[in-house]
């Protein structure tokens, strides 16, 4: 069944159940994202980011990309946010409200962002308002399928990515270790990290 015919069959005014779920979760996700970039509590921003990323994981599930949803939960919600929280702590970010969380560029930034959003939404809606995703049929994003394509077709990029991750790891350690006279306190730690 062709996408256009499907789109004609499925109007925007008669949404399916999946669509309703997607919309609701999308609203939550977007709201959490907006709160992330506007709240004055720095730690709250990290927590709202968790909500937004989790909402995105649910959206992946609704799009039948099961494996990616779990990866999202594991890596983003599990590790990235923790890293960010550690960063906040290490830079002694204030725990309460910080009135200067936004810089003086805020109006200009808002204008640019709104303009970009308007342009993007207009273009995207204009281009894809009649496009229908057929979610039925065989599962496309199960762990089995993902593993097969990843290790059958994408082995080389995957290995390259592992090297990149290693390089990033080494780089992060080199950047964040204390050097010189200050390094006396935790002298034993850096060599161990290097290894």
């Amino acid at each position, binding site marked *: 069944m062709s996408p256009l015919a499907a789109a004609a069959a499925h109007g925007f005014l008669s949404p399916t159940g999946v*669509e309703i779920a997607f919309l609701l979760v999308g609203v939550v996700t977007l709201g959490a*994202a907006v709160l992330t*970039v506007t709240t004055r509590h720095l730690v709250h921003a990290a927590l709202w980011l968790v909500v937004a*990323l989790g909402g995105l994981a649910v959206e992946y599930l609704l799009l039948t*990309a099961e494996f990616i949803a779990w990866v999202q939960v594991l890596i983003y919600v599990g590790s990235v946010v923790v890293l960010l929280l550690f960063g906040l702590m290490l830079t002694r970010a204030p725990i309460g409200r910080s009135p200067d*969380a936004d810089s003086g560029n*805020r109006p200009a930034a808002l204008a640019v962002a*709104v303009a970009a959003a308007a342009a993007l939404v207009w273009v995207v809606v204009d281009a894809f308002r009649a496009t229908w995703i057929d979610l039925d049929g065989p599962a496309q994003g199960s762990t089995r399928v993902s593993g097969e394509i990843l290790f059958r077709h994408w082995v080389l990029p995957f290995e390259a990515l592992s090297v990149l991750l290693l390089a990033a790891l080494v780089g992060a350690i080199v950047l964040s270790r204390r050097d010189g006279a200050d390094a006396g306190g935790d002298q034993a730690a850096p060599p161990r990290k290097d290894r």
Partner: protein
Amino acid sequence: MHLAYPAVLAALLFCTGLYGVLARRNAILVLMSVELMLNAVNLNLVAFDVWLRDTLHAGQALTLFTIAIAAAEIGIGLAIVLMVYRNRATSDVDRLRDTAEPRPPLSSALRATDPDTDAPGGPAGDADSGDPDPDDPGRAAGEKAEATA
């Protein structure tokens, strides 16, 4: 499901992240906003992969790679922020302005059409703008000492 839903959601998320990058002052909040933008892209990749029913599932594979790279990026980024914080005792993006041009008064631009009077003024201005470089390590060291104290 209509493709428009995930596409519009991705666009809005991207612009939200964009706003955060441009408006937030703390470097770590800027990094969070970057994560939002990356996730918006990921959503797009997944949605289009599902719509196109790609046999190679390039969209999903790329999403995985992006997630990995985003993790690496956040690690490196946080390391840099930490280092900056250690050196400057701040992680505010708009206070890191060492590349700024010194601001000459308007009169210096309007004056000195005469090359004779201009010649002493020009090198003097250059010397002023050149001075901070030698001073910088000293100042940075001072701030660093302050930060570690």
